């Protein structure tokens, strides 16, 4: 029988964890587990893995919006049932992969995916793969921008890079709608980040009843919040806080802790662009992404300024960088002053670090290049 609300602990099953992964392996994966010898990318979106047993596994990777319906999942299942004995998987960048065990099964699968209209084949090798992104206005309460809409607008513009492998190296684009950075924004080649630019409002009618004031105070990275007496709309004095606006850099962490300190704002909020992060250890160590454009407006539904900025950086990099060079490796080799010049991005004081370990990021050498910035 189903759940009985009168008897909530009856028949309750807990702590069973996820289902065991092995039952979902296609036979060719199960039989060749740990025996793979090498792989090749046959064409954009199609991988071939060869086992020491001689077995082959062909993978077709398709793009996905991540925010998807059960109807579309059922379409994926139909595709898997038709071509892949009912097996499929999802990647760490939210693409979908269908696997078959022989070369002659590949073309029909690729054709069916491309014919569907929502299953573009690609995302392999030196191109742009799916954008790791967050909840945005679809589900979160702290965003400074939307996620799904911006991602769709950017991927439409970069679509040719998803279905080809023409770049100097793979380019990872990520988006987070606030600086909690749920996901990969702080370590991506190009990162799109929602930012606020106005300090929080303080709702003295509710703050005493819904916030633990010490938590809100401790939430501030810059110590901008102090306990204070406030006055509510009835003119009564209440326990509250003040924000020293000169110290506030609009991170929104106080709102995360305290519902009475909202800070979202239609004109204030928008997008910053960071570049040059990476995760792999290949050649150079992992790198943080760095802030190069401090603000672009929220301009739904297609965010043209953001799309243009991402495309511009990608294309200058594609023209200028050497083979295997990630965006961050390229920018560091040519020097950030050249990066700004080549990408024609105005440099502002907003890109100069002034938080804690900032000194390490300033230039303490006479080694620099003369660029158009020095008049």
């Amino acid at each position, binding site marked *: 029988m189903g759940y009985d609300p009168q008897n909530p602990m009856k028949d309750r099953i807990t702590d069973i*964890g996820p289902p065991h992964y092995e039952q979902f392996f296609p036979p060719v994966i199960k039989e060749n587990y740990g025996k793979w010898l090498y792989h090749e990318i046959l064409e954009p979106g199609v991988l071939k893995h060869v086992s020491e047993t001689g077995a082959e596994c062909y993978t077709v990777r398709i793009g996905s919006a991540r925010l998807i319906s059960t109807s579309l999942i059922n379409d994926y299942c139909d595709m898997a049932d038709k071509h892949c004995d009912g097996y499929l*998987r999802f990647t760490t960048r939210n693409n979908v992969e269908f696997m078959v065990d022989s070369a002659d099964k590949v073309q029909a699968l690729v054709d069916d995916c491309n014919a569907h209209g929502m299953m573009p084949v690609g995302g392999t*090798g030196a191109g742009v793969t799916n954008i790791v992104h967050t909840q945005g206005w679809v589900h979160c309460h702290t965003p400074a921008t939307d996620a799904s809409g911006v991602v769709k607008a950017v991927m439409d513009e970069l679509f040719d890079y998803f279905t080809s492998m023409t770049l100097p190296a793979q380019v990872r684009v990520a988006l987070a709608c606030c600086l909690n950075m749920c996901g990969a924004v702080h370590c991506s080649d190009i990162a799109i980040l929602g930012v606020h630019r106005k300090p929080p409002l303080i709702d003295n009618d509710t703050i005493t009843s819904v916030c633990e004031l010490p938590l809100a105070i401790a939430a501030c990275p810059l110590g901008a919040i102090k306990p204070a007496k406030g006055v509510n709309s009835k003119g009564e004095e209440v326990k509250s806080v003040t924000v020293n606006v000169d110290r506030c850099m609009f991170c929104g962490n106080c709102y995360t802790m305290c519902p009475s300190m909202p800070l979202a704002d239609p004109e204030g909020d928008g997008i910053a662009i960071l570049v040059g992060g990476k995760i792999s250890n290949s050649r150079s160590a992992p790198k943080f992404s760095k802030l190069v454009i401090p603000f672009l407006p929220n301009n739904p539904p297609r965010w043209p300024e953001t799309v243009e900025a991402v495309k511009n950086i990608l294309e200058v990099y594609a023209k200028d960088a050497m083979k295997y060079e990630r965006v961050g490796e390229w920018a560091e080799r040519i020097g950030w002053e050249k990066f700004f010049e080549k990408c024609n991005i105005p440099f502002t004081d907003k890109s100069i670090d002034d938080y804690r370990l900032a000194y390490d990021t300033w230039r303490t050498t006479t080694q620099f290049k003369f660029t158009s910035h020095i008049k």
Partner: protein
Amino acid sequence: MPKHDTPMLDQLESGPWPSFVTDIKRQAAKNEACWDILGQLELSYKDKITHWKHGGIVGVFGYGGGIVGRYSDVAKKFPGVAHFHTVRVNQPSSKFYSSKILRQICDIWERRGSGMTNMHGSTGDLVLLGTFTEQLEEIFYELTHDVGVDLGGSGGNLRTPSCCLGKARCEWSCYDTQAACHDITMTYQDELHRPAFPYKFKIKFSGCPNDCVAAIARSDLAVIGNWKDDIRIDQAAVKGYINGEFPANGGSYSGRDWGAFDIKAEVLDLCPTGCMWMEGDTLKIDDAECTRCMHCINVMPRALRPGVEQGATILIGAKAPILDGAQIATMIVPFIKMDPENDFEELKDIIEKCWDWWMEEGKNRERIGESIQRIGLPTFLKVMEVEPLPQHVKEPRSNPYVFWKEEEVPGGFERDLAEFRKRNPM
């Protein structure tokens, strides 16, 4: 019939990338609530602001997390999303599925939720997006009884671990990432479902330093595959690359004409340690100098393979910027064996030492990376019972503000000023 006008969202139906708007509209034919998702989102596009109320605490009995509560702040206009809670479902290691289990989950979700999902959340969970409070226990009951799958984590606890696909379909995996991920998830079910930590704690498993699950950036404890002995070289295959029989990097660069493969320019000269050279047409590697960055292996997958003495490196403390700035994880244990036979004993020992210390010392809402910064890496290494090694630093400190313990200094800290003045009068 559309319930609301969505002129702005309609513009996101064009273009080649799969449109979430088209998809939600299609779902709305089955689940009315989807019209209200679109309606409220359109309003957010117009107002340029979110319309979700702050926070929301909901869940299922027995657990302290797994469900993110959410309420609309314009529920009168959009009753279908008055409640819009998210259910995190624990995904199988590296996200292989059968169509059968996906259809089962979809069926539950179409009956009891909006029919919209995230495949998957950044942490790894299968995310069911949008349902009402009264459905939560029903969904949990059907997931556990009919499908045999549990909730994932949320809150101040162990979050859902995740891994790269490892040995299932990659020749470089230095340990069984999926077995490790599954074992750790099962062993620490209690820590996952019932928040007992100062803050969230994430564990991620990558099979090699390419780190396809981004463990070094996105987990408090990163387990990254590594090897200790020599890179395996197949000299015949090296010649194959030089002769142009095999494409560099498995063909990753085939979309552009980069000229003929040049092993000197593309491999030897890009090796970060300069530890490779050619003797005639034989490739040589001074493995003692190799930092196992993966570059040469990535470029020539048919010729080079990781060594056979395999295990993992443990790095600790990655986090996003809040509060004290973003951190990439710090290398703590250079090499451990990752043995499914002994249930990953060495790894569990490390995890538990971390937790024992951090649960005592960590402040409220302080990630372990911040605790280590506040208290210092030397102290943390002691806690972890790890000898300090030159590998623990990028470079030695340059300031001389060195702490000494009293017992390390002859005579200790207790001194008598009178004695001092006998020799050094004012």
